[in-house]
């Protein structure tokens, strides 16, 4: 009996020791601290940061993607740095400087390849997600924007200078490139819909957007809202909008206008305009709460202290508030009950309830910009 008691105790102790070693990452996230080259590891349940990871170089305009197991983050720095961060061990696992000037990246649907979009030298480079060894170099002689992953081990990206969209199919190991020309003048960013079907490019050099149906074996540019700004004086654009935080609300897409203080609504099937909502300033992000009932919008300098919330049933602004100076980014919890907001010049990340609009938490961060929850690991294009 005594022996049995000891055995029980041993099993119990082993189990508790094991429990201490279990690390879960499903409710974690990373916040980019752009000026100090660091990341804050944050815990959504704790509503707080739990670690600072330093040494990532120039993180202005940095973004990141997650491995399918939500253990590793691949961080794309402005200085061309590609850093693999182990969020379970809370440390940098590997880092390469792969170009002189980069602007974001993507991870393939199977999680084995990481692609980086480069300004200088212009093009896309593709790396082994395990080792960070380069497996493909796709020079474009243009700045590349709007790099996303697409189903079938593909990456899609667009050329700012040349107005072309390229599809790089990596299914055979070597890139097979399909080029689609006449996308439009100065495409500045692009998105892919969550089903991987539509790739929509925003244009700076002309009004409208261009959609590509990736289900079409020979994709062609489809003009969307080609005259949305016609007859109106374009306003100066002090910050380019982002399309990555694209919003799909029910059957419609909501997109930031360029040079106009509006968001634009288009039908998800026909791509015809279904409405416009006048906003407080030039929108930067228009992001749908995951259920699609609300769209949260922030704005370019000098109106970047404000957020407006739009009800997608009425297309009307139902809430407006000023979290603080320089609201740069918003990230919803996976089911949308709260939103985390980076307020750069307040040095804070603020957390709001999306139904009551009440602030439910905040914590310190050094010039916070992008907020990325690990749930992105399982969403196409993020």
């Amino acid at each position, binding site marked *: 009996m005594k022996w049995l008691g000891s055995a029980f105790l041993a099993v119990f102790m082993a189990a508790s020791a094991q429990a201490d070693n279990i690390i879960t990452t499903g409710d974690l996230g990373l916040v980019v601290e752009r000026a100090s080259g660091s990341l804050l590891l944050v815990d959504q349940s704790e509503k707080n940061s739990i670690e600072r990871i330093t040494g990532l170089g120039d993180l202005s305009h940095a973004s990141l993607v997650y491995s399918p197991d939500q253990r590793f983050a691949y961080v794309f720095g402005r200085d061309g740095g590609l850093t693999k961060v182990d969020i379970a061990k809370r440390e940098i696992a590997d880092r390469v400087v792969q170009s002189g000037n980069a602007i974001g990246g993507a991870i393939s649907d199977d999680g084995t390849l990481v692609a980086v979009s480069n300004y200088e030298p212009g093009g896309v480079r593709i790396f082994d997600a395990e080792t960070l060894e380069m497996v493909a170099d796709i020079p474009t002689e243009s700045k590349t924007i709007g790099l996303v992953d697409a189903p079938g081990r593909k990456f899609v990206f667009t050329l700012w200078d040349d107005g072309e969209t390229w599809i790089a199919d990596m299914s055979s190991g070597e890139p097979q490139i399909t080029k689609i020309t006449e996308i439009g003048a100065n495409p500045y960013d692009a998105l892919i819909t969550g089903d991987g079907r539509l790739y929509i490019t925003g244009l700076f050099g002309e009004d409208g957007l261009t959609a590509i149906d990736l289900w079409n074996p020979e994709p062609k540019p489809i003009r969307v809202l080609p005259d949305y700004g016609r007859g109106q004086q374009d306003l*100066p654009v002090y910050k380019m909008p982002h399309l990555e935080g694209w919003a799909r609300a029910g059957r419609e897409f909501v997109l930031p206008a360029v040079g106009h203080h509006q968001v634009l609504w288009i039908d998800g099937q026909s791509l015809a305009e279904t409405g416009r909502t006048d906003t407080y300033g030039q929108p930067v992000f228009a992001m749908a709460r995951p259920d699609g009932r609300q769209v949260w919008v922030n704005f370019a*300098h000098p109106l970047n202290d404000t957020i407006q919330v739009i009800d997608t049933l009425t297309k009307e602004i139902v809430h407006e508030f000023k979290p603080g100076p*320089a609201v740069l980014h918003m990230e919803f919890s996976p089911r949308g009950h709260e939103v985390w907001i980076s307020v750069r010049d307040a040095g804070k990340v603020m957390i709001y309830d999306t139904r009551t609009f009440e602030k439910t938490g905040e914590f310190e961060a050094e010039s916070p910009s992008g907020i990325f929850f690990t749930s992105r690991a399982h969403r196409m294009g993020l």
Partner: protein
Amino acid sequence: MRNLFIALALLFSGVSHAADVSSSEDLINLVKQDCGSCHGLTLKGGLGPDIRPQSLSHYDIETLSTVVLDGIPDTAMPPWRPLMSEADAAKIAEYLLQGELK
């Protein structure tokens, strides 16, 4: 009137309107954070070109001030005149050309 200036200064993130001259600290912050949206936080370029001193050496202060105030047509460079005074634009041009501001 003074209150109005203060209100405008707050509205425009510390960069004052009219003939007021902003502090060097505020202007440098504006250059890094807001010019940096396109030109990169370190000004070595992004969607917009490299605007570090060695890349701008063909400009004088007056021409560069005009570029800041009126933008460059048919490019993504916007006119900043609605948001800043000529005096501030001149200080920004000086900062960009010299890499520092006294």
